[in-house]
C-alpha cells in the first residue's frame, strides 16, 4: 500500500472512531438541516409556490438545497477539530512523526466526506415520508457532487484553522460571516430569481449557486441538464483549490505563529 494511502487511512480511522463509538453524534450535528427540512420545508410545500422546480415537485426542489446546506456547515468540523488540536499538543505530536503532512488534512477531509454521506442518506430518507418522490440514481449522483464540494470546503476549513492560530477567532469570524450569506445567495431556501436583479448578479459569482442548481437537476434525474456540468466544474474547482491550499498550509504548519 502506498505510504500516503496508508497515512490517510491512519488519520481517517482515528477521526472516525469516536463517531462510530457514539453514532448519535452524527444525527445531532445534522440538527439544523433537519429542522429546516421538516419545519421550513413543510411550510414551503404548503404554500404551493411555483419555485421553478421544472419537472419535479416542491420537495424535489427543496431537499437538494438542504443537502447543500448540510454540506456547507458539516465540513467546518474538520477545521474545528484541527484548530483545537493545533492549540493543544495533539497536532505537534503527529508532526514529530514521519507521517505525511498531507494525510493529516486528507484523513480529516475523508472523515467529513463519509459522515456527510451518511447524513445525506438519512436526510433524504426522512424526506420520503414528508411527501418527496425519490429518484434514487439522481439522489445518489447529487450526493457524489456534494461530497466533492464538501471535500473542498473541509480542506479550506483546515486552511482557515491553520491561519487562525493560536486564538482561533479568525476561524469563527470568517465562518460565521460566510455561511449565512452563502446559504441565502445560493438559492437554497428560496429561488434567487425571486429577488431583484442585483441579487441574481451576486448569486452568479457564488460558486455554490451553480452547485445548488446542479444538485436540483440531478436530484430530479435530469442528468443531461447543462447546469449539472456547471455545478460539477464549481465543485471540482473548490475541491482542487481546497486540497492544494491545505496541503501547502499543512507543510508549513509545524512553525509557530509569527515565525520569520
Amino acid at each position, binding site marked *: 500500500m502506498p505510504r500516503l494511502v496508508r497515512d490517510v487511512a491512519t488519520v481517517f480511522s482515528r477521526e472516525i472512531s469516536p463517531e462510530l463509538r457514539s453514532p448519535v453524534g452524527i444525527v445531532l450535528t445534522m440538527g439544523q438541516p433537519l429542522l429546516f427540512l421538516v419545519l421550513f420545508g413543510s411550510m414551503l410545500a404548503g404554500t404551493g409556490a411555483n419555485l421553478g422546480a421544472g419537472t419535479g415537485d416542491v420537495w424535489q426542489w427543496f431537499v437538494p438545497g438542504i443537502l447543500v446546506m448540510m454540506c456547507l456547515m458539516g465540513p467546518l468540523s474538520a477545521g474545528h477539530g484541527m484548530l483545537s488540536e493545533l492549540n493543544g499538543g495533539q497536532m*505537534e505530536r503527529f508532526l514529530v*512523526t514521519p507521517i505525511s503532512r498531507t494525510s493529516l488534512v486528507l484523513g480529516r477531509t475523508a472523515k467529513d466526506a463519509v459522515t456527510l454521506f451518511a447524513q445525506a442518506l438519512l436526510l433524504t430518507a426522512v424526506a420520503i415520508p414528508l411527501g418527496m418522490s425519490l429518484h434514487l440514481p439522481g439522489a445518489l449522483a447529487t450526493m457524489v457532487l456534494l461530497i466533492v464540494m464538501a471535500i473542498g470546503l473541509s480542506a479550506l476549513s483546515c486552511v482557515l484553522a491553520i491561519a487562525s492560530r493560536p486564538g482561533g477567532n479568525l476561524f469563527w469570524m470568517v465562518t460565521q460571516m460566510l455561511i449565512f450569506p452563502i446559504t441565502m445567495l445560493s438559492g437554497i431556501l428560496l429561488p434567487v430569481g425571486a429577488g431583484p436583479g442585483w441579487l441574481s448578479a451576486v448569486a452568479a459569482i457564488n460558486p455554490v449557486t451553480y452547485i445548488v442548481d446542479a444538485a436540483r437537476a440531478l436530484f430530479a434525474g435530469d442528468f443531461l441538464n447543462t447546469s449539472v456540468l456547471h455545478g460539477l466544474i464549481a465543485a471540482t474547482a473548490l475541491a482542487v483549490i481546497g486540497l492544494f491550499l491545505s496541503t501547502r498550509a499543512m507543510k508549513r504548519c509545524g512553525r509557530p505563529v*509569527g515565525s520569520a
Partner: protein
Amino acid sequence: MIRAEGLRRTFKAGKETIEAVRDVTFGVATGELLALLGPNGAGKSTTLRMLTTLLPATAGSVRIAGFDAAREPGRVRELIGYVGQKNASGENHRIRDELVTQGRCHGLSNGKARRRADEVLEILGIGDLAARTPSTLSGGQRRRVDIALGLVHNPRVLFLDEPTTGLDPHSRAALWDRIQLLRRDHGITVLMTTHYLDEADLVAERIVIVDRGRVIADGTADALKAELAGDRMHITASDTGAARTAAGLADRMPGVSEVTAEGRTVHVRIADADAALPAYLRLLDRAALTVTRAGVRRPSLDDVFINLTGRRLEESGDAYATATMTTATTTDEPIGAPHA
C-alpha cells in the same frame, strides 16, 4: 547522539524581531540524560522544537544520530520521541486507540502498533487506563500517557519539554522512576527541559544552562557547583573585631576565592569546604579567637545561576509561579518561548 551547533531562531512579532535562541551549541552522548535548565523564556522550548524538526532553525544545524534535521527530517523523526508541554492525547479518543494511531503514524503495522501500545501502557503503569478518555484522567496520569505516546515506536532519543510541570511531588517522583527505568532497560538518550532547579540537580547527569537564548554553562551538577559557585563555610566570632581578624586569616588559606565579614559573621567561598573548615578552626584557635558557630553550605544550582547572571533563576523570566520539587502546583499553563 544529539549535536546542536550554533542554533539560532528569530521570530517576527509585528515589526519587532525577537531572538528566542541566539547561539546554542551542545552535544548529548548516547544513553545520557541531559537537562536544559533556564528561566521561562530562555529559549529552551524553541531549542527543543528545532531539535525535533518541528521548527526550522534560522541558523545553525542539528544532527540526531548523524542525521541532519533540516536535510533528513524523516530519518530524524523515526529515531526520536517527543513529549511537548501540552497534553497530546485527543479529548474524544481512548488512550489505547491514540497509542495505536501513534504507532501507525510511525509506520508500524496494525498488529505491531497494538502490541507496542499494550507494552508502553505496561511500562508506564497505566494499563488500567487503556479504555478511558483523557478527560477522565488526573494530571499525572495524562502526563504518563503523553510519555507513552512518545515511546510507542521505541525511539532511541526521547525529548521531554517540561515533563513534570503542574504535577504534585508524588506524581513527579513516580514519573521519574519510570523514566529512569526506561533508561536502564532500553538505554535511551533523554533530553529534557526544566525550570526546576531541584529536578535538574536530582535526575540529570549533565546540565546545560540556557539564558536569554545562549548556553551559559555546561557540565555535571557537581562540576558546575564547584567551578561556578564553590563551597561556602561560615563562622561566627565573639565580636566584630575578632571577625575582621578571622577574615584576614581566611584570606590566606589555599583555595579561597571570596571572603566577606558581616558583623560577627565571616563568609568564605572555598574549595572543598568540608576539609577546609576544620583547618580554619585550628587556625582561629591558634590565634586565640573564640568561635561560637561554624558551618558549611554546599552551593545550589541557583548559586551557579546567580554567579553567572547576577539574577536568581526562579525569579528570572516571565512572572510565572515558581515551584520546586517540594511545592505542588495544579496549573498546567503553557510557558516558555513562543510556541504554536
